[in-house]
């Protein structure tokens, strides 16, 4: 087990290195730089800025220097948010996205799995159709439209919430609703589809024939097996949601990392772009690693088969 994890860790570091390198050169290949504005900076000042930020050095030197800093755990200082540590900015903005994201994920899973299960149990019946139409709507209405509609009706027309704000628990409702609509739809459909398969599987028939308690069948067999694709999807989804949604964060005025990331790219805030990319990369790889572990835990066959063969 230790070897397994060490092995994974090694691969992760190698990937991270490749990610950093690729992003660094990609970023530098794109036209524009952090000092651009409608009014051009004087050439003398420009030269001084280039020197201060090391932009006058050859690209590979800048790259090696950056790599060296990262190895020492130094993500540098933002070029747009002057004098702010990139790591600080990431932590601060990520905490907002995380808080929102966790609520959205929990809501998505509960509602999504329940909807999907209902639809599967009542396959081709009214409940199935209603659940699936809801799910399709969740996908068919883009989040920027949904967010605007939610704000207009629930905040402005019905005065149930504030239009903007992210302080008290009630402020979470609208952004969570907008954020989880698509994952709910996705999870519901995945759950339905894989549960349908499971429900027709022989071992379920066997279990039924054995006279096993219905609840036991549902949760021991059907859900456990039917949830696999949901777990696959959950890895990237979790990474996706907690890394913030630009649209939702912009519309609801939330100081999240998604907004920060897009702004950093528009501003060519090089250190911040790199910092968030590395952060996202680590998160994603961890999420995928955990997904793989979950496979082993949830699906008895993945584990059993390896023992049998051994």
């Amino acid at each position, binding site marked *: 087990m230790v070897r397994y994890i060490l092995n994974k860790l090694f691969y992760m570091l190698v*990937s991270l290195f490749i990610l950093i390198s690729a992003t660094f050169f990609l970023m530098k290949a794109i036209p524009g730089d952090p000092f651009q504005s409608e009014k051009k900076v004087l050439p003398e000042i420009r030269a001084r800025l280039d020197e201060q930020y090391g932009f006058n050095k050859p690209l590979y030197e800048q790259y090696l220097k950056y790599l060296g800093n990262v190895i020492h755990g130094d993500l540098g200082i933002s070029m747009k948010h002057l004098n702010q540590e990139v790591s600080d900015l990431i932590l601060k903005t990520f905490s907002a996205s995380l808080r929102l994201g966790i609520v959205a994920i929990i809501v998505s899973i509960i509602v999504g799995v329940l909807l999907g299960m209902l639809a599967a149990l009542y396959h081709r019946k009214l409940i199935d159709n209603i659940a699936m139409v809801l799910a399709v709507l969740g996908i068919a209405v883009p989040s920027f439209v949904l967010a605007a509609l939610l704000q207009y009706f629930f905040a402005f027309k019905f005065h149930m919430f504030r239009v903007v704000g992210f302080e008290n628990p009630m402020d979470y409702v609208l952004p969570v609703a907008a954020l989880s609509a698509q994952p709910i739809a996705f999870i519901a459909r995945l759950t339905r589809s894989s549960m349908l398969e499971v429900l027709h599987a022989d071992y379920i028939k066997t279990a039924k024939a054995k006279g096993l308690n219905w609840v036991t069948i549902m949760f021991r067999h059907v859900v456990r097996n039917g949830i696999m694709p949901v777990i696959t999807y959950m890895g990237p989804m979790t990474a996706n949601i907690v890394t913030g949604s630009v649209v939702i964060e912009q519309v609801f005025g939330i100081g999240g990392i998604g907004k920060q990331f897009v702004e950093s790219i528009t501003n060519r805030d090089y250190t911040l772009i790199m910092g968030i990319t590395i952060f996202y990369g680590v998160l994603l790889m961890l999420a995928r690693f955990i997904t793989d572990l979950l496979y082993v835990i949830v699906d008895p066959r993945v584990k059993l088969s390896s023992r049998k063969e051994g």
Partner: protein
Amino acid sequence: MSLESSAAAKQTATLTPEDFSKISPADKNSEVIHRESISAWKDAWQRLLQNKVAMGALVLLLLIVLAAIIGPRISKYSYDTNDLLATNQKPSAEHWFGTDDLGRDMFVRTWMGARISLIVGLSAALIDLLIGVIYGGIMGYFGGRVDEIMNKFSEILYAIPYLLVTILLLVVFEPGLGTIILALTITGWINMSWIVRGEIMQLKNREYVLASRSLGAGSGRLLFRHLLPNAMGPIIVTLTLSVPNAIFSEAFLSFLGLGVQAPVASLGSMVNDALTGWMYYPWRMLFPAILISVTMLAFNIFGDGLRDALDPKLKK
């Protein structure tokens, strides 16, 4: 075990030659399967034809495609001609879907937008499908080092900031539909490959795969005849979702100024443009939004039908 065999042994012991009789030649073929042998695809197609809801959705989709082709032509207006004297007009006999903020006819623009969105959505989804299934299938099937490396590669690609890639693509290539589809697919297939990988990893230990393998089936046959068809459910679901995903990603790119170039518009960018004033000019958002939703609904219902038809386990 022992009990049964001893009983069988007892039976054998009591058999006499009188228990046997000759069968007539006419009965010789009784073991042959009489049902006509049909291929899995043909079978699926027949089952799809029987699914009325799914066929209805397919017809609807074809109608939308047809309308996107001929819609702009049956109107006297062109999608890119402004009429500053007729801006933001309500739907009327003159302008069936109203006009937008530059007085352009929304009927023509909506169908033009549908054309663009369908091209973007379908081609991106199909490319995602092709690459994702092959890549994910190989990862899931071979496992081990191959999986490890391919998996990491997809992770790295996924983690590279997508916007940077898109900006660079638009700088390097001419802005246009092709570039946008390329930008959408360059990382779009990864999700599909992960779904496929997960499914295959789970399926490859199933008994029927083991059986087929022990009967000498090669990797290709196993993957394409047994594993992928059985993973069809999640694949189709992911596919039907990647169409709207591509359409909305394009809208998001327009939002950042990286989508299709004006005056051409996609449904997504039209909705996006209408968003700031939708409470006052609802028709500008409504028609493209409804068209998106209906298209998605049809895609999904058809996708469900396709899934049911392709799933060997749902055979009745």
